[in-house]
């Protein structure tokens, strides 16, 4: 068996066994609360193929993307300013710490209460939840830029704009991307919360609706679908990160060997 196949087998056997076991043991289930996995899949598939789910998924993911994009723009800009001017950072520190500790989900009712159950309050809620890890990581990233690199830029009289774009930002990129990764996970949570709290569309709404109608299979199905979405987003992000920061990972490997 080639190494690749062996590794794939190692990675896949347990999940396959797990889902297989679930499928098999629940096959003839008559319990209200634990319907057969086969039925869950069937119901969800039906809603995907001909039902409202694709639209809902698009709504949810669209809001997530918009909120995350907003958080990235605000977080990186503000983070670069605060990272560059330590005095400003220290003065704002208590305020930042407080907002960081605040459970942002608690603000969802306020947003929805004030702005309604459309897309916009959800986007703002998501953005508010996502901005903190991005902001804090950007600050750390900017402050962690190698002094030697900054000095070189000074010695060669590189103008500030160019310095920001091609020295500071790339240097901080690994930290910033790590922040975005955390923000993505938070964004998914806020997205679901906002849709369960007040919505007329979206995957969270789909699950809530199903539970209110006591359609247990549909509720399970929606829940698993959300889990699947979370997993796909998370994995895709890691893959994208590996490509985007390939210089960083390649370098770490080389230096790891030589160090």
């Amino acid at each position, binding site marked *: 068996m080639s190494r690749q196949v062996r*590794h794939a087998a*190692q*990675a*896949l*056997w*347990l*999940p396959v066994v*797990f889902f297989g076991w679930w499928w098999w043991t629940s096959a003839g289930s008559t319990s209200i*609360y634990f319907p057969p996995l086969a039925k869950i899949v069937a119901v969800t598939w039906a809603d995907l193929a001909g039902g409202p789910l694709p639209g809902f998924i698009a709504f949810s993911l669209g809001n997530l993307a918009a909120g995350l994009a907003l958080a990235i723009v605000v977080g990186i800009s503000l983070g670069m300013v605060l990272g560059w001017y330590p*005095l400003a950072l*220290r*003065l*704002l*520190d*208590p*305020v930042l*710490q*407080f*907002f960081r*500790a*605040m*459970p*942002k*989900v*608690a*603000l*969802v*009712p*306020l*947003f929805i*209460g*004030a*702005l309604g159950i459309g897309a916009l309050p959800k986007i703002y809620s998501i953005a508010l939840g996502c901005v903190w890890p991005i902001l804090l990581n950007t600050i750390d990233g900017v402050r962690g830029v190698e002094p030697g690199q900054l000095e070189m830029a000074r010695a060669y009289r590189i103008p500030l704009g160019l310095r920001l774009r091609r020295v500071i930002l790339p240097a901080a990129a690994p930290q910033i991307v790590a922040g975005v990764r955390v923000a993505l*996970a938070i964004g*998914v*949570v806020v997205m*679901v*919360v906002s849709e*369960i*709290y007040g919505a007329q569309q979206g995957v*969270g709404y789909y*699950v*809530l609706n*199903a*539970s209110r109608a*006591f359609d*247990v299979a549909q*509720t*399970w199905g*929606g*829940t698993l679908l*959300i*889990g699947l979405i*979370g*997993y796909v*987003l*998370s*994995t895709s992000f890691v893959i994208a990160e590996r490509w985007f920061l390939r210089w960083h990972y390649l370098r770490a490997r080389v230096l790891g060997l030589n160090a």
Partner: protein
Amino acid sequence: MHVLRSRAGIRIGQLAVALSILALWELCARRGWVDASLLPPPSQIAQHVAALPMETEFWKAVGSTLAAALTGLVIAVLVGVPMGIAIGASTAVYRSTRLLVDMGRSFPVVALMPVLVLLMGTTPKMLVVVATLATVWPILLQSSYGARSVEPLVSDTARAFQIPARYRFTHVMLPAAAPYIATGIRIAATFALLVTIGVELLSATPGLGREIAQAQEGANFPLVMAYVFYSGLLGLVLSALLVRAERRLLAWHPSSRVAE
């Protein structure tokens, strides 16, 4: 500018900044430049902030939330640490469980709320389940990182001396993984609080989250913000306590002997 360099100067500066932000906020809310249902004036919020600790309802809610979050955290530690270490200790186990762990950790536990409400109702037990499910992942992951960080030399030595597996666990792996586990617990604690409040909010289970939702329904926006304030405060306090405990318990570990 030199004034600002001193320690006291910075504190004053921070206070000044915080107060000016509050003042600006007050102004905007009063003048109606900002929607008062989104950002009520700090003065009104302050009234509630002062009044809440006098009410037993408030402390009951805090107690419920804290109890559920902490219980969930404790269970997550009891389950997550041994599992995490087992996963980290063996490459074969790590590889086998990787996919499932990834799926589990990227699962937004809040999405389980409707199912759990169907199964268990809006009870504290349901909250504990949610909190456990949410917090077990960071703890498990951090424990596995900790186990993987054990110097091969140390574990080889232990095995060479034929130290039985359970002693290897408690005396070699656990201490080595301790700082990682501590970090995991810290992350998990704030997360537990967040998830607990989130689920209370959505399902009207007793706790701080439900108070927020009810205040919102009653259109008492300053009260909502006051509760949000206390939620944040709770998170800060919990975090600070954990950091203190970590420092005390892990004083023996080289990584905590960092010059401050």
